[in-house]
């Protein structure tokens, strides 16, 4: 696929308008704002950086890359193993449900757009088993099936995750629109570094240690009122 086509595909899949509910999740931020622990841009930047240093950069992004490579080599056993592993690495019910819902939603729409694509085999498998359908794995195998280059794909995945978090931050922290855009630009460098590093991480090395974020996700389940599903 040429570069322009790749850009358009990634903007469609990861640009925020693909209808998979990506903007329904705050990934623990809502618990922090409920406790008034994140109420300014400095604290929110710290929240984003920890996400990038842990689950997003050290589990999700590498999972995109691993799924991409397994799809390229036609290794369906490894894809299934990876999908199960990603589920096992998710520490809370809401994070598991969010990833599964977004992943399965993405795959279903992708398969309707590309009904002849080999990715349909994976959708068939998901329908008939308990395997997760985690978003990072599904995204990785889908972009691989379209021959989008891995650098662009994993960068787009990381950028869209940070962007979705910033959209949640605009509502919850709250942030003004200009400072939220400056914040996004400020993360370009770290996103690029994460995207490079993600391509070198093996399944055994997947890990993101962030106990306070885990607790925030657990506490979100019990919030009295919630704008977000996670």
């Amino acid at each position, binding site marked *: 696929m040429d570069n322009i086509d790749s850009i358009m595909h990634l903007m469609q899949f990861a640009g925020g308008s693909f209808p998979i509910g990506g903007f329904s999740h705050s990934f623990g931020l809502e618990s*922090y704002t409920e406790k008034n622990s994140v109420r300014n841009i400095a604290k929110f930047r710290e929240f984003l950086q920890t996400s990038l240093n842990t689950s997003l950069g050290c589990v999700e992004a590498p999972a995109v890359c691993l799924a991409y490579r397994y799809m390229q080599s036609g290794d369906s056993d490894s894809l299934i193993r990876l999908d199960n592993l990603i589920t096992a690495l998710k520490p809370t019910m809401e994070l598991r449900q969010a990833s599964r819902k977004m992943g399965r939603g993405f795959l279903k729409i992708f398969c309707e757009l590309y009904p002849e694509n080999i990715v349909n085999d994976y959708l068939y498998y998901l329908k008939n088993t308990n395997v997760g359908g985690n978003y990072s794995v599904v995204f990785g195998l889908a972009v691989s099936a379209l021959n989008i280059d891995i650098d662009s794909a994993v960068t787009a995945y990381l950028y869209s995750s940070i962007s979705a978090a910033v959209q949640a931050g605009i509502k919850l922290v709250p942030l003004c629109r200009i400072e939220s855009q400056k914040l996004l630009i400020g993360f370009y460098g770290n996103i690029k570094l994460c995207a490079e590093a993600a391509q070198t991480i093996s399944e055994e090395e997947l890990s993101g240690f962030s106990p306070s*974020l885990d*607790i925030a996700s657990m506490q979100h389940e019990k919030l009295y009122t919630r704008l977000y599903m996670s």
Partner: protein
Amino acid sequence: MNREIPNGKLDLIFDIRQDGSTYISRQFYKLPMQVLPPHYQDEDGTAFVYMLNPSGGILENDYFEMNFDLKNGANVVLTTPSANKIYKMNSEAALQKTIIRLEKNTVLEYIPEHNIPYANSMFCQETDFFIEKGANLFAWDILSSGRITRGESFDYSYYTANMNFFINDILILREKIKIEPKQFSVRALGVFEDMSILACCYLYSEKLSSNFSDSVFEKLKTFTNLNSGVTLIEPDFMTVKILGNKIADIQEAVVEVWSLARKGILDKKATRIRK
């Protein structure tokens, strides 16, 4: 040092007698690991067992391996008499590997004392639980930031702890702790923040319910100086995470969770273990 051969080993197989009480049917130990004979404080014959390390702690290059098998409806409480001290190391880390296998209808309460990594220590802990559906497990893992009362906190070189939970050979949960305080900020938002001690509790049972996990959440809310959360990652698997600054507070909280699990899920009375 040859890392293929552990310098400390403890292998125990638990079975039940005709009267229904649990006993150690087979044991092997290699010092400095060893085990005391079980004592009994429950009416159902649960074996309370202390795993011992008489050397007092974990030294550079130590490699300890433990295997525990529960069979035929055995009921066991496995604990340690005191905190696990991980001493300073110059170049080689210490490693501790534990494999636990539970047949269905067995009950294991795996509640070791906390780990204290001293300044400049390097430690890797790996714990695998292979659980048959129908078994019951309550386990906790507690990590202090160091000898806090001496002013040591996050002064260790690195600490990794991997826990894998398999139900009928399917990986349900992988917890990976990797902390290198000199490489990244443990105080960052989302990591330890202003807390120093982490406790994780795990409860697997087909008798689990969302009502029970709600009751644990409500109990933990009363500990206002702790930051805690409860989740059912699967309908039959609950995890709890607790952050605090005083080991006594953390211990009180995890013992409360354990007591609730004993009464509400494991059909036992709450109890205390003298240490």
